[in-house]
């Protein structure tokens, strides 16, 4: 997967993501968007697959946007131990959906996603509705290992996460970070928007044979949220 949160020159936050997974043709056929409503109002929106009740990509209108990138660390038995011994530990995709339902701001979402115990490690990529609200949370099972925030005042106008810790080099055989960053830097802060974010997520390697969908979101402009099934 590749997720990017960026701030344009006017202060608008844009969030784009590619979801890469095996079983691509199967998943492409059952990709849907769901507006979760109560009393006729959309509380939150997700992109999901038929039968999958958790959330891997979602938006709380005027609150925050979130995407999930897989983080493979440790061993299978560590996940099993966490599930058996820590009854407070959440399933990752359930935590995302509960956060979309209950967290009414970017800060509350960050706190909840960073510090709720999980069964498996993961990266949470979160965008807000206000300037400088963008972060990559690197999660271990018990808590956040690191919260890497954008800092537009000092030139870090976007954060980009694939499936490797941002403080380490990605492996050469799976380096989607370098082409993604190159495309972002070429696009530039003045030109980043929903359309150019989609183009960044369409450059080779970032868009690859495992990509099932691309989603573009902006919490402050909830009507922007859309998802396209990709057939690379």
């Amino acid at each position, binding site marked *: 997967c590749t997720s990017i949160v960026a701030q344009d020159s006017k202060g608008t936050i844009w969030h784009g993501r590619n979801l890469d997974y095996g079983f691509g043709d199967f998943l492409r056929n059952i990709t849907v968007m769901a507006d979760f409503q109560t009393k006729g109002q959309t509380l939150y929106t997700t992109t999901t697959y038929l*039968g999958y009740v958790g959330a891997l990509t979602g938006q709380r209108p005027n609150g925050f946007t979130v995407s999930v990138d897989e983080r493979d660390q440790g061993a299978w038995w560590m996940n099993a131990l966490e599930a058996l011994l820590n009854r407070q530990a959440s399933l990752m995709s359930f935590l995302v959906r509960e956060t979309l339902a209950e967290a009414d701001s970017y800060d509350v979402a960050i706190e909840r996603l960073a510090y709720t115990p999980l069964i498996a490690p993961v990266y949470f990529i979160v965008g807000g509705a206000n300037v400088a609200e963008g972060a990559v949370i690197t999660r271990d099972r018990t808590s956040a290992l690191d919260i890497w925030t954008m800092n537009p005042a000092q030139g870090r106008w976007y954060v980009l996460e694939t499936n490797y810790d941002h403080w380490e080099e990605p492996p050469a055989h799976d380096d989607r970070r370098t082409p993604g960053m190159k495309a972002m830097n070429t696009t530039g802060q003045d030109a980043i928007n929903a359309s150019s974010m989609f183009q960044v997520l369409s450059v080779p390697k970032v868009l690859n044979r495992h990509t099932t969908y691309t989603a573009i979101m902006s919490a402050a402009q909830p009507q922007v949220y859309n998802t396209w099934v990709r057939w690379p």
Partner: protein
Amino acid sequence: RDAPVKRYVVDLDTAPEEHFLPICQDPDIQAMIPMLKKDVKDMITSLVPEEALPLLDVLTSDLDQYLPHPFAGEMRGIANCTGINLGEIVTLNLAYDLTAF
């Protein structure tokens, strides 16, 4: 060939078993269900060791004890609507937490 995906409303004011019916009952989705049943089996076979499959029966026998509201009811609703085995639906929803290591 990039195509925007269909968008549905999930009414949280209804029972969890009904949340995903608008998606599941879409004629386009219904037409795919026979193929989906086979794909789901293939996916699960590759994700979960065969020896672990009986454990899913234990889990699904008392789903409400193991999974928080409204997820258990939603999975039951999807299983009823698609005819896909509830244990298989549960497994798909646990896939990330089973395989991320």
